């Protein structure tokens, strides 16, 4: 039953923009699920539908057997989200932010205060717990947002591009928080950073142009692509003949040969003999991403303004 299942999930904004096109997949709802894709691929739309913020145009989805549309109130008892552009409220402190978020979820003041303090201490934010949010660094603000959902009782957490804009050190620091969160909860995160997905994800989803082009563990996705091995040569190197793979040249002139294992080793043998510098290895997630998503999908601006349904019951 602990599964995230989507079936033909589609979302149209107006007549022309189709943000999601029949997304169907299932994945375990435990550990970390990372959704990767280019700008406008539909990541935020998918997260918002799963987090009951947005109604799909068609299709269905469920998490642990709870329908995200028909049983949204039931699901909201178990979920929490940090949206892509969420910010800590400037006139409050991390402690006040966490405390009031928990009270909004229905915790009594004393229990909320206790949980807030524990959560801030767990993320090593106790020293800045009483500092105004506007005085905190970007990384600390993101951590403060994570502390809010960590303090909650939610066991399904959505994080939409939680590390965008963070410097590399803060990002890696944040990964530790995500691993901490994932110990006893299901984390669904979206990211632009392939390295982040590779480092964190138990299950990976790749979205391109509103369609899901791959889902599974990193090794299983690797198994599905045509070229398993990569040979990289510095710029201006003589390129050997490639019969079964393909050759691409990066912006910096670096040459990459994507091919099968046998040809990759045959090429490397020739390069060794010729004294050419090269590196060889299984394809990285970057390579997988580009093979699956390719250049055919266009980076579009994902719509953020939509019409809304009536009613306070939401």
């Amino acid at each position: 039953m602990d599964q995230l299942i989507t079936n033909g999930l589609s979302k149209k904004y107006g007549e022309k923009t189709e943000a999601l096109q029949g997304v169907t997949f299932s994945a375990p709802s435990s550990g970390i699920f990372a959704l990767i894709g280019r700008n406008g691929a539909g990541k935020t739309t998918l997260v918002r539908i799963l987090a009951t913020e947005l109604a799909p145009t068609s299709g269905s989805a469920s998490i642990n057997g709870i329908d995200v549309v028909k049983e949204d109130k039931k699901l909201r008892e178990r979920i929490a989200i940090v949206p892509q552009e969420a910010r800590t409220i400037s006139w409050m402190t991390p402690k006040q932010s966490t405390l009031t978020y928990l009270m909004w979820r229905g915790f009594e003041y004393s229990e909320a205060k206790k949980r807030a303090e524990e959560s801030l201490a767990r993320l090593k934010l106790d020293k800045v717990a009483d500092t105004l949010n506007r005085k905190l660094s970007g990384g600390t603000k993101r951590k403060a947002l994570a502390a809010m959902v960590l303090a909650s009782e939610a066991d399904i957490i959505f994080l939409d591009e939680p590390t965008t804009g963070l410097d590399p050190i803060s990002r890696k620091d944040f990964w530790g928080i995500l691993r901490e969160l994932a110990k006893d909860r299901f984390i669904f995160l979206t990211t632009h950073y392939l390295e982040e997905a590779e480092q964190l994800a138990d299950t990976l989803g790749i979205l391109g142009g509103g369609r899901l082009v791959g889902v599974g563990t990193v090794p299983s996705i690797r198994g599905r692509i045509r070229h398993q091995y990569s040979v990289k040569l510095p710029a201006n190197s003589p390129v050997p003949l490639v019969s079964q793979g393909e050759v691409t040249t990066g912006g910096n002139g670096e040459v990459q040969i994507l091919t099968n294992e046998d040809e990759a080793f045959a090429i490397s043998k020739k390069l060794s003999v010729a004294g050419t510098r090269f590196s060889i290895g299984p394809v990285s997630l970057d390579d997988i991403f580009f093979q699956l998503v390719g250049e055919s999908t266009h980076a579009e601006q994902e719509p953020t303004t939509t019409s809304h349904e009536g009613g306070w019951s939401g």
Partner: protein
Amino acid sequence: MRRSRSSQVVASILVNAVYEMKNYPINLVNTVLSPLSFLVVIDFVSKGALIGQAIEGGLIMSMFQSGMSLQGDISHLKNDFKLQDMLVSSPASPATYVVGMAASEIIYNLPALAILVALGAIYIHPGLFQAFELLAALLLMFMTSITIGFMFSTLSSDIVQSFAWSRLLTTVFTAITPVYYPITYIPYPFRYLAYFSPTTYAAEIMQNVVGFLQLSESTVIVDWAILGGLTAVLLVVVSRNARWKEV
């Protein structure tokens, strides 16, 4: 787990009134000064003759401003901090959220209201029943402004636009309309225009209660009916059209 509705309401009050007042007291000064500044001007210009009407006008403006502030505050929290998105994906209910936010606006306005009530006790000194009538009219006025404010806030996607609407509606409904002065000061046919504003009915009722206006019984009944009816209609409209979850 058992969820506390009162905690959900208190959370809104803490965020939108207590912590904001504590950290940005300048907003509090602005909230107090707006209704009092009109009162002072009217008092000077009328050489004290309209002080009673001006105090009642200040109370109406303060209550109406609360609703309009709600609009700006909810928009700000929704658009700039994505708070509404976080709350939609949580067990928080839109009803407790808006009740809490409305309560926070009243608490924010308490200093201004306290000054105006003290002035009212000195210059108007209403009896107990009159005070009850004044309070009822103010509460209906507040509910009307809260419903207008909440609906605008959930429709707004831009904070600059939201604050512009807030200022415009406050000016139109409390400064231009006969709130700080009697409606009889407006010449015909412009007087009819004033009846498009809900604040006009509240002001007529309140001015009549303490004898600043002499209205027929039927006019007073019509005023109460329009103010009450408008509040009820707006509540229904808001409950059907305000946005919480997107489609």
